[in-house]
């Protein structure tokens, strides 16, 4: 190739640094932008179904166990902080603290999934299923004596399990990914002060999952 050819292949403008993010980080941000639309579609559907529901919607705390979920929210917030502490540790070059905070994040995340599984089992045991209320259950009696509005419980059940279920699926995927990274990269000490992109990228995903739960907790459990 001649010098003239090489010059002809140069772009006619100075190269720009764009968003100043490496490929995997930019990829994660694009993925998260699509996730914003995904969860907004779910939340939007919930809002539309709730305002268009026949009769009243069940009051907060009458069907769902708010104290248990509040504890779970606290767990997820703690896991978000431990994740960002893991990021800050390796950014400062501290391998030991990275291992500690990363493990704390995995434990908090796995505990969140465990508590959510317990919550589901407890709700199903009380008779709250995705199609509404199971006949002959404790909640069916509350519907019969007028304590719970029966007409909208089918919509309540389907929207509740869809939204929290998809979120729980995201948390589970996050925990599995973190366990994989912990075993293959964090424990063998492959992340360094010069190369810790994996921690930052999985951290972005994890904080997003926390952010979505903050909104879901308020909309589904408190309003």
């Amino acid at each position, binding site marked *: 190739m001649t010098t003239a050819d090489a010059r002809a292949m140069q772009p006619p403008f100075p190269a720009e640094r764009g968003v100043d993010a490496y490929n995997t980080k930019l990829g994660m941000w694009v993925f998260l932008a699509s996730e914003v639309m995904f969860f907004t579609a779910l939340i939007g559907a919930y809002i539309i179904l709730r305002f268009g529901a026949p009769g009243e919607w069940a009051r907060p705390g009458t069907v769902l166990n708010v104290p248990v979920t509040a504890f779970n929210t606290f767990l997820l917030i703690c896991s978000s902080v431990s994740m960002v502490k893991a990021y800050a540790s390796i950014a400062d070059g501290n391998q030991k603290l990275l291992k500690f905070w990363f493990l704390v994040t995995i434990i908090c995340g796995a505990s969140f999934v465990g508590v959510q599984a317990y919550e589901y089992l407890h709700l199903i045991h009380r008779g709250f299923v995705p199609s509404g209320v199971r006949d002959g259950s404790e909640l069916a009696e509350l519907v019969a004596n007028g304590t719970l509005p029966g007409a909208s419980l089918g919509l309540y059940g389907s929207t509740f399990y869809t939204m929290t279920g998809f979120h729980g699926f995201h948390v589970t995927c996050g925990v599995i990914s973190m366990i994989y990274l912990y075993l293959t990269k964090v424990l063998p000490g492959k992340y360094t002060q010069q190369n810790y992109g994996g921690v930052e990228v999985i*951290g972005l995903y994890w904080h997003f999952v926390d952010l979505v739960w903050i909104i879901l907790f308020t909309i589904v459990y*408190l*309003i």
Partner: protein
Amino acid sequence: MESVQHKHPPYLLIWLYLFLLTAAELGLAFELPISRNLKLLLLLGTALWKALLVAMFFMHLKFEKWNLRMLFIIPLPLAVILVLAVITEKIW
């Protein structure tokens, strides 16, 4: 691979802030005797405030370039328009 270096924000202080806001939300939802509409507004405001704290400090959006921030922000108004369009469908 690493990001542009910046001073770490006070993460534990933000955690405490998030914890207090969650506790305030619970008090607001179950204890405070105020009108339903005001409660709704305050609860949504608190949730958005918490979400913003997570995005700005834990996801480090505060320290990113504007065009990367826009990548995350642009879907939000589109999503609101989508929801409002469907909610108001029966008016048309």
